[in-house]
């Protein structure tokens, strides 16, 4: 049947169908892109409204929620909803782990780019990639079976402590920092190195006075991305930190973070109860913090462009 149609009609038809395909294809990929936007907006709106419920519906004061150190939601007569200890715990493990991981990560990056660019990179690059691949629960499990008993016997305290959480997180964010720092160092133009070396500077002087300052915004971005990961990590920390509701007084004290309290209590509180709603408010804090980290990174990369 097809063959009997005059050539003109056949061509016109095929032209039309190919344009149809063109249109369909474009609509399809646009839908995919729109989906990304709507997912982001949906997450913000859903978690935003749900997270504010404990303030709007249950009448908890925001100030008390953020500044009180008393957390006792199960007390029938006089429940207290102060999450300051957990906010403090989150920030403490984040900063302390960055303090450990940043020198190691940036040092590793410098080793790969400046000290031994050929063989050093060949060894360290796969090592870092394998470290990224280890799932967070495995880090938590090793922390629980190796690190916690080790700290209990050799350092002191219960073992479940801020220190354990910090070390586990430091190892987890080390690959993030190393990868981005390596990219930053290796994208520095070569004439910086050559110029400095030609002036008679040693390699260390070149690294310290020329290369690190030049790459500083990117290195800070690397550290902040690592901190963002540490701030949001839940299960690995939850397994080693001890999860108590008090403000820790030393690094060997058990503690808790926002994520660990959410993980621990979300499963066995009734959906819609006051305690459950406060967990959603903590989730909202996590969401806001992750926006804050993005803004910080944006600010740093805008500074990089000015240079």
């Amino acid at each position: 049947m097809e063959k009997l149609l005059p050539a003109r009609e056949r061509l016109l038809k095929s032209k039309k169908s190919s344009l149809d395909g063109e249109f369909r294809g474009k609509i399809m990929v646009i839908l995919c892109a729109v989906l990304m936007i709507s997912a982001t907006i949906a997450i913000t709106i859903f978690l935003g409204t749900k997270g504010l419920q404990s303030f709007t519906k249950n009448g908890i004061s925001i100030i008390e929620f953020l500044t009180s150190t008393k957390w006792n939601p199960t007390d029938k007569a006089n429940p207290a909803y102060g999450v300051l200890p957990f906010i403090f715990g989150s920030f403490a493990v984040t900063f302390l782990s960055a303090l450990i991981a940043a020198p190691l990560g940036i040092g590793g990056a410098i080793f790969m780019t400046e000290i031994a660019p050929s063989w050093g990179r060949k060894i360290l690059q796969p090592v870092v990639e394998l470290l990224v691949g280890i799932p967070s629960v495995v880090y938590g499990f090793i922390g629980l079976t190796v690190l916690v008993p080790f700290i209990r016997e050799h350092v002191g305290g219960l073992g479940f402590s801020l220190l354990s959480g910090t070390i586990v997180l430091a190892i987890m964010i080390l690959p993030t920092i190393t990868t981005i720092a390596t990219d930053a160092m290796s994208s520095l133009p070569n004439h910086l190195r050559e110029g400095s070396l030609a002036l008679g500077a040693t390699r260390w002087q070149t690294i310290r006075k020329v290369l690190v300052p030049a790459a500083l915004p990117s290195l800070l971005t690397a550290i902040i991305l690592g901190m963002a990961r540490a701030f949001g990590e839940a299960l690995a920390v939850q397994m080693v930190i001890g999860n108590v509701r008090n403000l820790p007084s030393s690094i060997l004290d058990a503690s808790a973070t926002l994520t660990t309290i959410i993980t621990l209590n979300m499963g066995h509180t009734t959906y819609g109860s006051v305690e459950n709603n406060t967990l959603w408010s903590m989730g909202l804090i996590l969401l806001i913090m992750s926006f804050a980290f993005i803004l910080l990174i944006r600010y740093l990369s805008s500074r990089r462009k000015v240079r």
Partner: protein
Amino acid sequence: MNSKTADRIATGAFIAIAIIIVSILAGLFFYIFINGLKYISFDFLTTPSSNVRAGGGIRDQLFNSFYILFITMLITVPIGIGGGIYMAEYAKPGKVTDLIRTCIEVLSSLPSIVIGMFGLLVFVNTTGWGYTILGGALALTVFNLPTMVRTTEDAIRAVPRDLKEASLALGITHWHTIKTVILPTAFPSILTGAILASGRVFGEAAALLFTAGLSTPRLDYANWNPFSEQSPLNIFRPAETLAVHIWSVNTQGLIPDVEAVSSGSAAVLVISVLIFNLGARWIGSIIHKRVTATK
């Protein structure tokens, strides 16, 4: 101190840092394999887990992990490739494109526990499904989509301009060029990226705790009807994955052989992720050779 000495000390310090990083990895792998491999046996992989007695295996958890991964990739890959095509081929520089980029950045930096909470709110409570494989897969999709979009976009941008221009010059429409010229050329990189992303999804637990749940119903592997309650293929049943299993036996388990089960599971998990990583590289390079005829 003279600057030569300082230079030597600094070099020593950097080498020490490199050694520390390598030994961290070596220590972790050594520990995982030494402790885990002795518990892995055919029995361990093929018996169902037990909630109270010793000697449980990880059959269902292992199956659930792969099944959720499969469903997740089934949803993520088409959407991710679509988004990547849009970003690389159709997006014009401007406000909308900036907005999409910001969204991708936001999605990729969200903590997985937050995505789990979103999943709990939307896929578990609002839809009324309860804990389901589908809910877990959708949460993981949110988590995985940004990676997939970026991978596809980078892969497409790496396709030589000449190919695209030659195709367009032959009078082939844009979409047809994408379908028949650009995507096949970018395919090896996209596949490598997808397998690497699979490794990440496979080990993810926090996003699944509140979406796919902490339990698995009694499964009957002879039942292949996807709508039956006991069928392993049913996507509306709760499913505990391997990563979640490690967490739950350690924090709320009652079994006496926690150490054995979690060491074995950790080793299986790490080996699977290793296979994903090595497999991605291997398959990527093979297909690259086939397609481009280079060595």
